[in-house]
């Protein structure tokens, strides 16, 4: 496996470690015959390093979500290969949690907050008696204690998204795949959740792939930012953010490096 890993990452100079997830020349097309065939992604090669926070930005409709679904194993690429820790991805796995943008559709409306979080533990075969402390810890971590017995329909958007994040954490993922998770939330809630997810990923050394169309969000959160060009999508740029941690909503966003990245990415996206 070590040999294999070294062979699959020649593009990343000086790195012999197996990437958390990687794509090699992945293409995706819808429709079989040539007149209706639509190429969504074209020969995407991308390594996500173990423990990094990678943001992917791109204009809407550029195939960002599809890219993430391929990482999750929910969609199979038409060509190319996807590897998770060196092994070919053939389908979804509990180790790669995905947080959907439309939280209201991803929660079970007939289960309470506790019940929704418990779903992950039940799927893993954790006994009911052992579920309780895990759920209590997650409720505390996500600030959901007071909503514990409420149903998703009774909660605000931000709270529902917290429930979805808690459920994903309950499945003990190695990687969090987040699909514009804060896109539908108001600015205050979004900033609070950005800081929480950032703290969480650093505290647990979690690998995160974060899709967004918001440049500033990408730079603020990411260790690296990948820019996806228009259809069929390709990676047009991959930058190292290099801003210090812990990040701060005020000072980080005023950092000259932050502004420089913003300028550069803004220009790229406009051209893309």
């Amino acid at each position: 496996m070590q040999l294999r890993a070294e062979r699959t990452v020649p593009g990343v100079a000086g790195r012999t470690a197996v990437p958390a997830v990687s794509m090699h020349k992945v293409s995706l097309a819808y429709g079989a015959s040539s007149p209706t065939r639509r190429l969504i992604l074209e020969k995407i090669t991308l390594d996500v390093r173990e423990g990094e926070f990678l943001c992917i930005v791109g204009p809407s409709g550029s195939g960002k979500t599809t890219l993430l679904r391929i990482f999750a194993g929910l969609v199979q690429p038409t060509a190319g290969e996807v590897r998770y820790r060196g092994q070919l991805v053939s389908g979804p796995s509990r180790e790669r949690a995905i947080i959907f943008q439309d939280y209201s559709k991803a929660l079970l409306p007939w289960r309470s907050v506790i019940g929704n979080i418990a779903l992950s533990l039940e799927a893993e075969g954790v006994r009911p008696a052992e579920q309780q402390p895990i759920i209590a810890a997650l409720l505390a971590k996500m600030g959901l204690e007071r909503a514990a017995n409420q149903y998703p329909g009774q909660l605000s958007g931000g709270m529902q998204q917290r429930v979805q994040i808690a459920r994903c954490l309950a499945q003990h993922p190695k990687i969090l795949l987040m699909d514009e998770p804060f896109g539908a939330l108001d600015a205050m809630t979004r900033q609070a959740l950005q800081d929480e997810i950032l703290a969480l990923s650093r505290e647990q050394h979690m690998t995160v792939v974060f899709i967004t169309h918001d440049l500033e969000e990408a730079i603020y959160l990411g260790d690296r930012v990948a820019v996806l060009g228009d259809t069929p999508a390709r990676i047009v740029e991959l930058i190292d953010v290099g801003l210090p941690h812990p990040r701060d909503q005020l000072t980080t966003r005023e950092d000259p490096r932050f502004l420089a990245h913003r300028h550069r990415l803004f220009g790229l996206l406009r051209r893309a």
Partner: protein
Amino acid sequence: MRRIVLGSILPTLFIAIWEISSRSGLLTLESLSRPSDIVRAGIGGLTDGSILVATGQTFETALLGLTFAAVAGIIAGAVLGLSPVLERVVNPTIEALRPIPAVAFIPLALMMFGFGVSMEATIVAYACLWPILIVTISAVRAIEPRLLEVADILEMTFAERLRKIILPAAFARINVSLRVAAGIALVVAVTVEIVLNPRGLGYSLMLAQQSLRVDVMYAQLLWLCVIGYALNALLRNIGPAAIALSRASR
């Protein structure tokens, strides 16, 4: 209360006119009995237990058939609802079998099973299967795809998926189809008994008619009306009760 009083004016008046006109000799049809005789026959049948035994027999087969249809219909419906390809393969066969009236299978079922519970229950199951199957297919197809993706990511087995995602999500609609099927089950069971199966309420109706006990016949009709109403009321409350129960256990 006021509604009940207003609603009972017409039936009371009707029964009174019926009773008076048949006592005064105005009404002498052979197919009519007096309300007072019907009530007496009904009380007689209930106290000697004959009506209750017959009801038990009819319910036994109706429920057996319904249960069979529900289990088969819900599982097959879930599978077909999840797999559009399979559904396309099976659908023409369903559409070909569905229009055959269940009672047309009575002669065949008689040859296969003889008189008794299995013959009747099979025909009931056949009649009940279709509404349950068809509603379940469409209910499962209408489930939010995100929820099924959540099940995929959590690597749930089919049984887990069925129990924790599919059935709860499709529950409300499936419950309606079960109510419809329960009504059909009763109708078909009584029909099979009237036509040839020597047991249950349908058979005792036929016996009453053949022995010219018109009062007993009416009493049993009245009884069928009562149990039909009770059955529907029961099923209507099962849905909310089950939801309350499942929430309480969480």
